[in-house]
């Protein structure tokens, strides 16, 4: 039987899926072991127990200076910024995206600009962002917005344009105004695509969040990584990276779940990766 027609059983699939993770952990443990044989004080690849204890310290031992549990405080602060940034991006994506996708005049006016804007690497204009938005929370949030909104706007606009024209015409024959069509026909049908766009946008959003926190912040996951990086405290950095990845993963799954719950009609049409 050809390989493509052979499907792994559930157990096989699970084992196969776990294998690369196990392989990475083992490879790490071995590399770390040999580095520490060379130099017991090696900081670059700390041992797994070291990382666990550093992580435990960040999570459960109150900081002596502030009395905070640093990990949770960092996480909370970062998630707040992420939420604010993505929130603004989502609003922009919905409003501009629908207008661009739905109204030809707005499309003619905004589409080239948004497309061009999306090509500007935001980190190159950081100084300008900081000047415009100050160095407070706003600039961190805005870096996320600038980095994610253009692409999200484009995908929402594209999704609007891909709505079957028949549905718009049908709505017109049912007497809908442009505003009513946006609210009752376009918006609800776009929402599941918006969630997909959010899920895709979260990847760069995390990167921009961390970059922003590394430049101007006194808390947050990115700040902590930046701070301990000067001492190459990989025993803190690596668990933080895993933690960030885990958070990103959970967010992604929650969004998928929310989409399935909220838009059952959308998910009746076949699944994806």
């Amino acid at each position, binding site marked *: 039987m050809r390989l493509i027609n052979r499907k792994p059983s559930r157990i096989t699939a699970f084992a196969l899926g776990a294998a690369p993770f196990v392989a990475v952990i083992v490879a790490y443990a071995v590399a770390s072991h040999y580095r520490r044989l060379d130099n017991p004080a090696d900081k670059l690849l700390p041992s797994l127990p070291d990382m666990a204890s550093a992580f435990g310290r960040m999570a459960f031992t109150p900081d002596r200076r502030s009395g905070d549990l640093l990990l949770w405080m960092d996480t909370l602060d970062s998630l707040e910024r992420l939420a604010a940034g993505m929130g603004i991006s989502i609003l922009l994506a919905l409003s501009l995206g629908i207008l661009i996708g739905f109204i030809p005049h707005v499309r003619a006016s905004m589409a080239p600009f948004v497309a061009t804007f999306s090509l500007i690497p935001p980190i190159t204009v950081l100084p300008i962002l900081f000047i415009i938005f100050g160095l407070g929370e706003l600039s961190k949030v805005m870096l996320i917005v600038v980095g994610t909104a253009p692409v999200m706007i484009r995908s929402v606009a594209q999704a609007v344009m891909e709505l079957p024209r028949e549905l718009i015409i*049908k709505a017109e024959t*049912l*007497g809908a105004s442009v505003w009513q069509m946006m609210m009752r026909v376009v918006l609800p049908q776009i929402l599941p695509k918006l969630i997909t766009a959010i899920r895709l946008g979260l990847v760069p959003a995390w990167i921009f969040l961390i970059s922003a926190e590394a430049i101007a912040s006194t808390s947050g996951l990115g700040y902590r990584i930046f701070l301990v990086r000067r001492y190459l405290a990989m025993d803190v950095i690596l668990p933080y990276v895993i933690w960030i990845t885990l958070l990103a993963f959970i967010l992604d799954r929650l969004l998928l779940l929310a989409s399935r719950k909220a838009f059952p*009609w959308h998910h009746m049409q076949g699944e994806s990766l």
Partner: protein
Amino acid sequence: MSAQPKVSVQNVAKIYAGTVVLERLDLDIAAGSLCTIVGASGCGKSTFLRMLLSQETPSRGRILIDGEPLPTEPTPDRGIVFQRYSVFPHLTVEENLILSAEFDAAPFSGKLRGAARTKAREEIAETLDRIGLSPARDRYPAQLSGGMQQRLAIAQALLKKPKILLLDEPFGALDPGIRADMQELLLELWRELSMTIFMVTHDIHEAFKLGTRVLVFDKIRHDPDAPDRWGATITYDLPLGRPGAQTIPDAKALFALKNTTRGDAPNA
């Protein structure tokens, strides 16, 4: 018929970027006709419906309804049912049906709540029963079979009580049993609401079974060097009276005749 025709198509042509799709369409349709349209794929049947719906404008000529020029965009006086994508996938059966009432009643939100919504739901209860979708009222279109979806689409269009109903291959995706049921339903509703119906179909049998008038679209002039130069027009215009027990002419014979001269002037 001496009364003013419901729809009057006057020397209409449609040209897309140099390609003549339709030309020399001249046609008066009396109110209450059930006009079926057949023709080869790509000959411009849907284009004709789109013009009647104001989705496209004629390149030449004009179309009048009740003696007035067509509005410049789709309006509620002309309903439409497409072969696919005719109902809103994000709304349940019931929500699809109350939507037009919501558009009327709530200019801003487009949404009814509370008592008004309950009332709107009551008003469509009979329609739901009539099209046999009462048990499926809370299902989404993706959970309906093709026939159920098309019943819903027709009901949705009819609730707006359009004067003219346009159907673009509405039963093309259905299988024979369900198709026959749908044809019955359509005839019933047509008789009851005295609409003027234009229906495009691929199925000659269906065209003759349902229509009071059958329009056959075809290209009659060919220029081998410039195939885009001439468009299709109406090659047959067959008034049949009451739909029902016509003898069905042979499909192949009908199409084989296409190179003869044009049929009678269609100002019936």
